[in-house]
């Protein structure tokens, strides 16, 4: 009875919420008040696929949903990205019949890292994809090992873990386990020998804390590592990126499946590979997955093209408090041989909570913007001074840098007759403030 009431209330609130433009977590919240264990009282489909990790969750989930629906599967998933237990509850109950049966072939859940243990107490994923553990929102998350410990409580023995072999910390969830599928990238032409980032989270073995040695690095601490002390090392992969050509927008998986890239960046490659691995796990043919993923343009608004006056540009959404997302977004600008200007906006650190902590700026590899493809750098927002200080510690000549506290002032400055393409790198919390101007 409670279950029925929870489902009805959830569905009604969702309909009302959509009309008045409220978020997707509130209905679930009420449903959980009525029936706290409602998630374990619904009849779930055969496949329950969960995705978690610091970066790439939303994109990976969207790509998985795309592949599955292209292949005739009915998929229920948290499209809006409300990824704590309330949002997942909304999604599950809204996709359920009044008798409590989820009306889809596959339940696909994006889950917040720290809260996965609460959600998966009630719903145990059959396939659990973990993308990576980076320095991400440390003002709330503490640090990657803190998140690791929280995530470890969300795992049970029955789940098929699908892990990024190239991330030494996330990969450690597979340590001593049998039913693990690893995905990763072979040595790539874009690899680096030394970690060029300003910090190194791959310096020490997550298992024994002795030094880790890398034979190749894709970026930061992502690569092929081995601990000479305890023997912990990168595992062999079930599916691998065997070749990548960012310049021409192509990647190859397992030596034979070719995907053309709508977004030419390394993080996109991992998201695609994770989606490919999941598609394979549920029995879809590799050739078909590759063709479904080819040229797939994300709908989640993380890449937006715009014009500032006559000047074209692209907004790349990075996440504040997440240095690797900045590094990877900026590397797209650095790779643009046409020459470009880069606008960086830090106005509100988060849209969900207040903090004035900007220590994460010191983890971002802004040094890379000293490359010859980047001509001018414009810094804007409330924290433009903190950005300017950070840039003063790079080797980039100060005359390449402009500082504006007002985003509109930065826009007006960029609205010139310069030929350079514009890349704007900022977070969800600040992207609207820029896009409303263009």
């Amino acid at each position, binding site marked *: 009875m409670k279950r029925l009431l929870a489902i009805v209330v959830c569905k009604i609130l969702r309909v009302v919420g959509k009309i008045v433009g409220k978020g997707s977590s509130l209905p679930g919240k009420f449903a959980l008040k009525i029936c706290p264990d409602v998630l374990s009282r619904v009849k779930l489909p055969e496949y329950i696929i969960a995705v978690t990790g610091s970066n790439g969750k939303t994109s990976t989930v969207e790509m998985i949903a795309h592949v599955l629906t292209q292949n005739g599967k009915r998929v229920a998933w948290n499209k809006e990205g409300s990824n704590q237990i309330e949002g997942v509850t909304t999604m599950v109950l809204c996709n359920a019949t009044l008798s409590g049966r989820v009306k889809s072939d596959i339940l696909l859940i994006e889950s917040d890292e720290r809260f996965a243990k609460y959600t998966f107490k009630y719903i145990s994923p059959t396939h659990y994809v973990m993308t990576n553990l980076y*320095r991400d929102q*440390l*003002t*709330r*998350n*503490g*640090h*990657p*090992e*803190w998140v690791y*410990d929280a995530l470890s409580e969300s795992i049970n023995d029955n789940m098929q873990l699908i892990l990024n072999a190239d991330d030494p910390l996330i990969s450690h969830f597979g340590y001593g386990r049998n039913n693990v599928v690893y995905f990763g990238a072979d040595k790539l032409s874009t690899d680096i020998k030394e970690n060029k980032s*300003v*910090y*190194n989270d791959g*310096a*020490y073995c997550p298992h024994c*804390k002795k030094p880790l040695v890398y034979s190749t690095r894709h970026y930061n601490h992502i690569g092929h590592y081995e601990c000479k002390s305890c023997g912990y090392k990168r595992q062999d992969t079930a599916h691998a990126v065997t070749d990548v050509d960012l310049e021409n927008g192509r990647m190859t998986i397992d030596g034979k499946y070719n995907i053309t890239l709508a977004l030419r960046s390394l993080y996109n490659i991992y998201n695609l590979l994770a989606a490919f691995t999941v598609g394979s796990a549920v029995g879809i043919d590799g050739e078909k997955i590759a063709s479904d993923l080819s040229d797939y343009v994300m709908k989640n608004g993380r890449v937006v093209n715009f014009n500032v006056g006559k000047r074209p540009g692209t907004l790349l959404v990075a996440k504040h408090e997440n240095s690797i997302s900045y590094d990877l977004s900026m590397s797209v600008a650095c790779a643009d041989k046409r020459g470009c200007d880069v606008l960086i906006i830090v106005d509100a650190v988060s849209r969900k909570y*207040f*903090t*004035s*902590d*900007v*220590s*994460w*700026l*010191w*983890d971002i590899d802004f040094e890379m913007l000293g490359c010859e493809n980047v001509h001018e750098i414009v810094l804007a927002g*409330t*924290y433009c*001074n*903190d950005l*300017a*200080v950070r840039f*003063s*510690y790079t080797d980039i000549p100060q005359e390449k840098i402009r*500082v504006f506290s007002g985003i509109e002032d930065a826009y007006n400055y960029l609205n010139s007759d310069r030929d350079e393409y514009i890349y704007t790198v900022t977070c969800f919390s600040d992207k609207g403030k820029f896009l409303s101007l263009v």
Partner: protein
Amino acid sequence: MKILHLYYDIMNLYGDYANVRAMERMMLKNGIECSVDRLSFNDKAVLSDYDFIYIGSGTERNRNVVCEDMKKYRDELKDCIDSGKVILMTGNSFEMLGKSITGAGGDAAEGLGIFEFTVSEQKKTRNTADAVFTADFLDRELVGFINKCSEIEGIDKPLFGVKMGLGNKNDGREEGLRSGNLFGTHLTGPVLIKNPHFLTYMAKLVSGADTELSEEHLKYEKAGYEITLKELSALNG
């Protein structure tokens, strides 16, 4: 001028390394020759050789590994503290100086035992907060961020007063540890960048108190400080 950044590659969780760069730049901008040594586990530093020693924050596991390794410096470090060497320890690094650190599982690890305090950690809640602190040796507040899972009992001489944020005990009004020229605080990250007046104060201690130091290069630092202080003060009512 010689600066030592100890355990630079593992106690560097929140951009802490910037504190060392700030001190180095402060010296160079004032025409004081300055070198930085960045050392870690396999090195054996002679602590007394340095004018300024810095250690930043780490994960609890990393801090425990470092604490074990630090025992080789225990007596040397105590001598340095007693003789008034300028030392800054931010984040959870100064927790190593106490008698013991009791982890979330209840297991107590021995600290360096230079001070009598004890540390206890839990793993349920990450205690994080924006912070505004006061110091009796500075005429303006400090701003920053606390990110920890521990509480400390038994510090007689704290470093800061808590106007906003978390203290040694979470709800306490006292924060950090001061002993001579040893400064320990749970503030994380680039504390000396966010608080240019604290940098100047520390740099004077390091270089010898008589020298007047130029702050001309700290224009953006000062502007950033004012904005953060204003935001946090508004938050605090």
